[in-house]
């Protein structure tokens, strides 16, 4: 099984917004609602993990002009 690339934070938030919107839609079936709920919880957990793990690193950009 190939692993799909992990979405970035913005993509996850966009998807969460979409899930919330779909759940508000009266046309959404109960099967879809359950699936959307599971996906929503998964995304929220990932986002929270991202925020918790976020780390500041400062790297100096390597410049050709300097290395030359």
């Amino acid at each position, binding site marked *: 099984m190939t692993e799909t690339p992990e979405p970035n934070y913005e993509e996850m938030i966009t998807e969460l917004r979409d899930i*919330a919107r779909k759940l508000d839609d009266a046309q959404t079936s109960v099967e879809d609602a359950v699936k959307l709920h599971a996906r929503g919880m998964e995304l929220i957990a990932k986002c929270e993990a991202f925020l918790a793990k976020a780390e*500041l690193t*400062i*790297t*100096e950009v390597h410049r050709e002009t300097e290395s030359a």
Partner: protein
Amino acid sequence: MAKKAPVQTTLSFDESESGSASTFISPVRDPNPLPKKEPDVLTVSELGERIRDILDCDGLTNITVTGEVTGYRPNASGHLYFSLTEKGDTDAAVSCVMWKYAAKNLAFPIKDGLAVNITGHVDFYPPSGRMQFIIKKIEPAAGGKTGLYLQKEQWRKQLEAEGTIPRPESEKRSPPLFPTCVGVVTSKTGSVLQDIRNVLSRRYPLPVLLAPAQVQGAGAEVSIVSAIESLQGKVDVIIVARGGGSFEDLFVFNHPDVVRAVRNSAVPIISAVGHETDVTLVDFASDRRVPTPSAAAETVVPDRAILANTLEEYRRRIHDRTRSIIAENHRTVAELKLRVDPSRLSRRLDMMQQQTADLAERIRSAFVRRIESQRDLLSQMQERIFKGASAKIKTASLELAGEKEKILAADPKKPLERGYALVQMGGAVVRSKNQLKKDDRLTLCLADGEVTATVEKII
């Protein structure tokens, strides 16, 4: 030291009045007549007059002097006062005044420390015994701060003419809401990087790519341009920052090469140079200008505390909605269950049966009524036909009897029984003697048979 009060009297002094300077001297001389003087001994006012005469020479009129402005004090009346000084091995200073009429056309603001060239003449003011330079014209001296100010204005015009600044509102890009990497162009040392680091650590820690640059002094523009270029394609947003400093310290951020590099950056740039009040030309080329480096860091990333709240909000909303959808579906299922209940179905069938029977009965009775009514109609018609036919037959019988009577009465043989004979010749009835001639043979029909006769005589 010059006293304040006499200086105030110079407010009414004007160059045009220099020829009648004695009017200023007389109030000093008249109320306090000096004792009779010796020949060659001058009164102070005479000395003053003599100095003024000497100063009024080519070497001291319409001359230009260079120096630095110190002790600048504009007067509420519009006249400007300062000292022009020279620093170095030979310190020197001269008091200067620029009258209101000359000062009103100044092209730039005068500040202490400005290097200027002043043009005018030297004058002596007897009431205070002061010599001062009367300025007609003042210009920035090359290399001085005013020179830099003019240089900035020149660059501004040039950059505006080529369309580099100002960046139109429509071309101001918003950095991504959740950047993955932030680029910073600033000095490797100094508090700016630390300020940015502090804000990012608190709000939204993420990888920072630092492109160190020399932010002032000769060659700084090359360093900054190179730093901006080195970050292209590697970061989501660039902060070009420098801490507070003097106009000269921040001057490189007006350099056209730097301004163009900011304007042409493919990555959105936030400029944070100096403090709130400092505006450099890069601020007009960047996608956004913020007052300080810390503000820049706050601008480029969201606050994770707020993000965590948002996630909690999503969690609640998704839970609530899903629960509500499931509850709705429970209700629907219960309702459907009730609707498909067997007793309910048999009741429904009974009702349908009843309805069918009712309908059949309605159809049957309607049919019967229809047949009966047709039958009635038929018998009525039969009756009418019968009556009509009987009448007709009766009339016809009567007519027939009449006709029979007539026919019977018209029988040609009937008169024969009473003795008449029917005369015929050649089968035709003879009605006149004129039809006959002698010897014609006639047939006579009698009641009981025929006889033949011959005409003997026509009478």
